């Protein structure tokens, strides 16, 4: 059953060059247990689509349904806290916090009721961060490690949907494969719906379903 559905989404914004149609009647359906890759050239509307799916913005036309509920009608901040895990190209780890604190941050915001520290440590272990590195500041980690910490943060609240925006964009090949492997495991082993926006063909190859964005139009490949 589809966990997330896009129905006839359209989105446009105004720039100095004029009106840009970032999304044109995009329709798609996402299920748990699968990895989805959205590929396309720069400026094709991928990030706009991700922003809409995360509830950071609302579409001009069309609807996004989460378990059949329209995102327009629900608390989107709560939706992100509880059901969405986001991963960014630049990791977005807070430099003033340690690795474990960065993971705890999402638990604190989601008002996690269990032992936050323990949960955070479990997630870090899951993505391959060693225990003795937990209390190191995030800036002291390598790029691949930072992205794995970001993944741990994204999955700490046990969301059903993982949105990853170019997660391997700043990583070398080996680290890219590591991260991709974790994402694939999340979908296949932990039954998450993983949606990855990427330029990398090797990442797209690992996906169960690949969408192509071309000039605001979403096409399933």
């Amino acid at each position, binding site marked *: 059953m589809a966990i997330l559905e896009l129905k006839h989404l359209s989105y446009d914004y105004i720039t100095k060059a004029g009106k840009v149609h970032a999304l044109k009647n995009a329709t798609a359906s996402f299920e748990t247990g699968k990895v989805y890759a959205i590929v396309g050239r720069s400026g094709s509307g991928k990030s706009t689509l991700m922003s809409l799916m995360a509830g950071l913005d609302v579409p001009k036309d069309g609807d996004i349904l989460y378990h059949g509920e329209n995102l327009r009608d629900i608390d989107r901040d709560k939706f992100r806290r*509880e059901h969405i895990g986001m991963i960014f190209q630049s990791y977005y780890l807070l430099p003033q916090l340690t690795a474990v604190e960065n993971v705890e941050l999402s638990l604190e915001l989601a008002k996690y009721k269990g032992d936050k520290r323990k949960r955070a440590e479990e997630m870090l272990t899951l993505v391959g961060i060693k225990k003795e590195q937990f209390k190191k500041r995030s800036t002291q980690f390598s790029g691949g490690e930072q992205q794995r910490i970001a993944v741990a943060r994204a999955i700490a609240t046990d969301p059903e949907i993982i949105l990853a925006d170019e997660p391997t964009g700043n990583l070398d090949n080996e680290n890219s494969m590591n991260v991709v492997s974790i994402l694939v495991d999340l979908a296949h082993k932990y039954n998450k719906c993983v949606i990855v926006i990427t330029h990398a063909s090797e990442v797209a190859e690992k996906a169960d379903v690949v969408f192509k964005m071309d000039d605001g139009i979403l096409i399933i490949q």
Partner: protein
Amino acid sequence: MILKFAIRNIIRLPWRTLLYIMVTLCIVLAITASLFVYRACENAVSELDEQYIFVASVVPSGQEPILLSRMGACFEHTEVLAYNITMAEANGRVPSGRNMKKMPSLDDREEADVLWSHDEGIPFLAVENLSLVPSFFDGRCTIGEGTGITASGYSGEESEIVIPWWLAEQYDISIGDTIIKRYEYGRYTFFEAKVVGIYEANVHTFREHDYPAYIPLAIAEMDLGYTIVRYMHETVAVQRADFVLNGREAFEEFVLTAKANGFDFQKAKIVFNNSTYDSLSSELNNIHMIALLVCIVVLTVGLGILIFFTVYLCHTRTKERTLLISLGMTKRKVNGMIAFELMLMFIISLFLGIFGGYLAADGICSYVNASVLSRADASDAIQNEGIDRNEPLFQNMNLQISVSSKKERSESVAVNYNLKATEHEIGVSRHTYQFVGTELEGLLNREWIPIHIVGVTNFDEMNVSIDFETFQHTSDYNDFAIYGYVSENSPYAPKEDELYTTYFINGCARDAFVRIDGQNIESAESLSQTKIYIIGTYKDNDYCSENDILLRMEDYHRLYSEHSVTTDAFYFERIGSVYIKEES
């Protein structure tokens, strides 16, 4: 949660926190310091205006004399704290003792509580220091109520009088009452004074009503003196006059009045000590303006810097904002967290800045006091070329600025009437007095008038201008006598069996003492001046020897004032002491 995140950010990002706090702190510190200094200067300027004591000196600059009457008019309506006027040799008489009169206005009469005439009352004596009057010195009379007249206690603000207890009882006079004493001098004239002391006598060796009332010498001379001269059309010349004026208004008024009375620079030199005031005022105004300027500049520029820096800090946190929002934090909470952080840092800076500003202002004030105002504080002696500078009438004001509300200010005003006695001030030297007084005890037991020694002077250089005929026609001739003591080694010392000996004194130094007994007065060519009754002897001591005659201070003063005795070597000091001037 916001609070927790904000505090964690402040602690975990020390450089950012420190930078923001330092920038804000510097701005607040500069504004606070300049405001404190501004306020301190403002207080000091206002205090300077209110309390600075000006001294004005007037001396004749040409041949034309300055009249005492005109001098008196200068401060008729001005608040004069004290004055010291030296009379010049005069054609007429200097007003003194018995001649002092005042023509009161109608208002004066109405304001008076008590009026008592000469016949009903007692003589009043002009003294500067009651403690030097024998009956007060030896404890027979004591001040019962009020302050009395002392060298340091006389305010000089108005005519004051100390009266005996019986007078107070008889007329129901209290401290603070105004009394008027009436004289008959062709027509009635009046003396008005405020009662500042009531004294009592422990031993009644006198007739009760012989206890005199006392007024300050300065009052007796000037407050009344100028009036009698004014009304009696007598001319008395002034050699020099110094006025201590309270405040700038009084000073300006005095200057105007002086000019209106013809004291321009052709006729008289008017020397003011306002340069100290001008210097202080100018320095303070400069610092005041600088403080204001710094405050305005820092406020304007600092506010701009602070706004820019705050906006910049917010911009640098875009990624953090994006992350927190993507993690489900509402925009409102994210903004709240950042605002709370800034507010917390601002409050810390504010407290530290105000405290630091206070300390900085304190330091600035100390620096200003030590470097700028200390220069201005330097004693501003009156620039009076050609004037006898052996008696400097100076004014020194030590003004300081301070950030505390407590006004730190010390002021020393030295004017002649309140100089403290030194060992060289004859008439003040207690041990001399005591010594001589003990030796003369026998005379007191003979029931002679117990005149004690309160003044010693050297008559060697005395030069008086009155002739005998004039003297005989003075009003004092039969009524008043001057009593004195001579050294037991003096050739004019009375014999043991003589009750007293009377001498005349003339202007020829020690030979001037002429024994009158058995001589024909009319045949003595040198007879002139006044009569001195030698009533006893004293032993030579540090302060007086065989050429000296000891006189009561009031007698000496009367002798001086009535006969206009003024020479370089023999002069009168307002504190009631007689100086022996050192040989130059």
